[in-house]
Each structure stands twice: as C-alpha cells, then as structure tokens.
C-alpha cells in the first residue's frame, strides 16, 4: 500500500482533491472551437489535433504555424492518440482540424467495406459518408501509403527509377524475393493484389515487419529485392530506395487531407489549409519526416523550413 506522507494528511489531501476536481472540470467544459461566435477574432478560432506519431504531429504543426500567421486563434492539442481516440473528439467539435489520410479514414471509420482505391473515389466516398458536422478539405498529392519499393542496387541494375511502374517488375518477378508484413500473403492489396493488378508472381515471399527495422535491413542487405514499404519511411531518402509508381491503385490512396469540424471553419482557414495541400508532395513530406526522425530537428523548425521553402505563411 502507498501511504500518503505525513505532510499530505488531512486538510492538505482535501485541498488537493478539490483543486484536482476544479482542474478536471475546467478541462471538461472547454470547447471554444465548437462555437464560432466564441472566437475572439474574425479569422476564426480552432483547436488543431494530431495522432500520436511523428509525421502526423509534424503536419499538425504546419497547419498550426500557417493559420497563426494568418491571424487565426489556434490552440494546439497534438499527440492525442490513435484514430479511435481522436475521431470522437473532432466529431463533437472539441478538436476542429486533424491532418488525416483519406484511405484509412474511409476504411477504418466511415465505411469498413469500401473498395474505393483512387484519390477521387476515396474522397467521393468520404464526402458521402462523413457525418454532417465533418468535411474533408482538398487532398494533397502527398501520400503515406504502402508501396512496392526496391533497393538502390536492384534499381540501378535493372534501370528502375521513381517514375517506373510496379508493372516494370513483371519480367523480373520470378527471380525476386518480396518482403512485407506476415499478412501480406493474404491481404487483398499485397501479394494477391500485385498478382492480379500487375501480373507479378514472386519467386518467394519473406514475412518481415510493418515497414519497420527488419524490412529496411532486409532491403539494405539484399535478403529481399523488393518490399512493402510505407512511402514516407525516411530510409527511402537516406538509403536511396526506389518506390515504384502504382498507376492501378493496387494500394488504396492515402493522401494527406485535412479533416475539419465544419462549424469552426472560416474562409481564411479553409483557404490556408487548401494552399498547404496544394504544395505538399510525397517527396516533400518524406524530406521533412527525415529531418525530424533521422536528423532530430524540432517539429517547429522542420515545419517552418518547409513553409518558407514553399512560400507559405508561417515560414521562417
């Protein structure tokens, strides 16, 4: 048993408990963003949230810096947790903007059985399926999706570049070992999908991890020649891996797309976020991810540098 120290006995404990409950009550009742009239400035007032992984927090930081530069009153509420945790928050308006990935948002929250794959189809399905208080703004071309990625050595030997298609692997596939997460052999977009859409029949499949250290090492060593790697994995940049194009949308689109709580929006806010989406590419996202994850730059520094390079407000 933990016993309170003598100084914490009696009245002190009651005082502490009372303070704690006041603080909790204050947290529970604060939802400034849900009512646009409560915002002090005409440009609006928002709470920006993010999921609990570096790239998402970085995107939220970019939104936050740009909106602050435009005179919007911004409250940062980053690192909330997984989608299961933050989605109910934005649905009721305690959070007003979250950087989302359209494909996963669709299949995890909105329509679990959706087969939409292209960016257009996914966004159409989202627009139709989201509750009336929520909407998605313009998608960026930046994607954090699964991909077929090959090592630099293999790409050089077979003249593959980042503009090559997965289909270009077809003549080579029979001598290739493909690596991916264990469920890849049964997942409809992985080994079966690559066969159906691009006619790839690999020599063998090596069960590794979810685009983690084992997969990266296997690609570096040549234990596998191609693997399922997420498109914004920093090693794509640092090890010069080559991600092949997926013109048939075997892997569903995962465009970075702002999910917003409609009542909190103003034209300043939507214009600013759409301007960011217009400039954000997979290569650009990969670059700032690498700055934060590999070089340990601060989120703010990486976000400011990107905004400045793209000529957007909030850069420094």
């Amino acid at each position: 048993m933990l016993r309170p120290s003598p100084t914490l006995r009696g009245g002190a404990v009651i005082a502490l408990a009372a303070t704690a409950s006041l603080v909790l009550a204050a947290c529970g009742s604060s939802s400034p963003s849900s009512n646009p009239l409560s915002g002090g400035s005409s440009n609006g007032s928002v709470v920006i949230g993010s999921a609990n992984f570096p790239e998402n927090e970085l995107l939220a930081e970019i939104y936050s810096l740009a909106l602050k530069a435009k005179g919007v009153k911004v409250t940062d509420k980053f690192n909330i947790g997984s989608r299961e945790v933050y989605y109910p928050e934005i649905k009721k308006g305690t959070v007003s903007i979250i950087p989302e990935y359209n494909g996963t948002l669709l299949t995890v929250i909105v329509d679990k059985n959706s087969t939409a794959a292209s960016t257009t189809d996914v966004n159409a399905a989202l627009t139709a399926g989201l509750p009336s208080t929520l909407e998605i703004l313009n998608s960026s071309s930046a994607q954090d999706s699964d991909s077929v990625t090959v090592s630099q050595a293999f790409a050089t030997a077979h003249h593959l570049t980042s503009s090559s298609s997965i289909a270009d692997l077809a003549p080579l596939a029979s001598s290739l070992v493909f690596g991916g997460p264990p469920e890849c052999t049964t997942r409809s977009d992985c080994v079966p999908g690559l066969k159906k859409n691009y006619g790839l029949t690999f020599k063998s499949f090596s069960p590794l991890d979810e685009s983690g250290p084992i997969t990266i090492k296997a690609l570096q060593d040549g234990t596998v020649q191609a693997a399922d790697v997420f498109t914004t994995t920093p090693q794509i940049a640092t090890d010069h891996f080559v991600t092949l194009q997926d013109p048939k949308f075997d892997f569903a689109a995962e465009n970075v797309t702002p999910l917003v709580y409609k009542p909190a929006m103003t034209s300043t806010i939507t214009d600013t976020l759409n301007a960011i989406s217009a400039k954000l590419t997979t290569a650009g996202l990969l670059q700032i991810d690498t700055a934060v994850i590999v070089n340990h730059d601060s989120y703010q520094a990486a976000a400011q540098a990107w905004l400045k390079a793209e000529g957007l407000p909030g850069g420094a």
Partner: protein
Amino acid sequence: MSFLAFAWDWLKSPQQWQGQDSIQVRLLQHLGYTGVSLLIAALIALPLGLLIGHYRRGGFAVVNVTNIWRAVPTLGLLILVVVSFGLTFLSWLTPLVVLAIPPVLVNTYEGVAGVDPELKDAARGMGMTDWQLLWKVEVPVAIPLIMLGLRTAAIFVVATATIAAQPGFGGLGRYIIDGLASNNYGEVAGGAAVIVVLALVIQAVFVGLRRLAVPTGLRLQARSSR
C-alpha cells in the same frame, strides 16, 4: 469457441500436415533452433560454471551479473542483432543463447560450489587431483542441479524460439506471427498448442535424462534421508 476448439479445428485440417508450411516441417525447424541454441549455451555455460564452482572464485560476481543478464529483453535483442548484422542465423541464435546461458551457468555453479566440504576433504585425503575431484566427486554430486539448469534452459528456449519467426525465419512461431497478422486465430491457437505439447515432451525427456545421469549412490542417499 474456446481456445482448445480453435486449436483442434486447425490441427485436424489435412492441409496443416502437407507441404512447406506443414506442422512437421515447422516442428523440425523449431527443434533445430532449440537444439543448436541449447548446445552452444551449454558449451559456454557448463565449463564456466564448473570452473568457478570448483575454484569458488568470482562466483558472487558471475551469479549476479548473470541474474541481471536475465533482464535482457529477448525480442529487443533480436531486433538489435537484425539491425546490426542483418538477417542471418545470428538473428535467432544470439537471443536464444543469451536466454539459455543464465539457468545453466547459475545452476552448475551453485551445484558444484555447494558440494559438502567434508566430501571434498575426504577426496583430497585419498590423493585425488583437482581434475579427479571435479569429475569423480563434484560433478556427480552436482548433477541434479546441473540437469535442472539444462531443463529450465530447454523449456525457456523451446517456448521462446517462436521469435525466430519475427524476422522471417521458420519454426512454430510462424503460425503465431502469421496467424495474428491475418486474424486467423485458429492458426495462432493451434501453433501455440503444438508448442505447449513440445515443451511438455521436452520436460519429460529431461526428467528421464536426470534418472539416467544421477548416480545411484545419490539416489539411495536421497531416499534414506527422507
């Protein structure tokens, strides 16, 4: 459906017993990982344990370092080895050997160091050399503890060899990793059940080995002192 029902449905399906991914193949791979790891761990830990137990030097340090060593997370070590040395047999061998060394080493040391000093005095009085003392007195007396160490290590390793599947190797862990990844719980339960049975069989084998290895005198002494 219960765990057992899941496992049984999976086990009795004929496709589990055919081809590259069949239970026999995975079982042999699993026994291979276990056997090699245990052998290497024994080759390191048995001589070291006998040495420090016999001379009673550095025992305190070795036992404590080994006990701290037990806290090394096996899966973490595996990822570290993969990242440092790539996907080779070292990926599964290193963590399993590291796992198996402490019980063998500590039990061997304690067994030998704990031999009755009067017994050793008597042996020296009969003119035995260090070598004779070790092999004719200390090892036979310590055998029950040494065997216990080997048995503990074997159970640890056979249950933990499942991690070889994490970086894409085979063994019975394949069923658990692949089954979890694709929500095929029958495969997970079936694979786990096979590993449990295997661990029990290994336990039984070591109980049998102990009977063979413990000298008759020691058994009689144990019986009469009851």
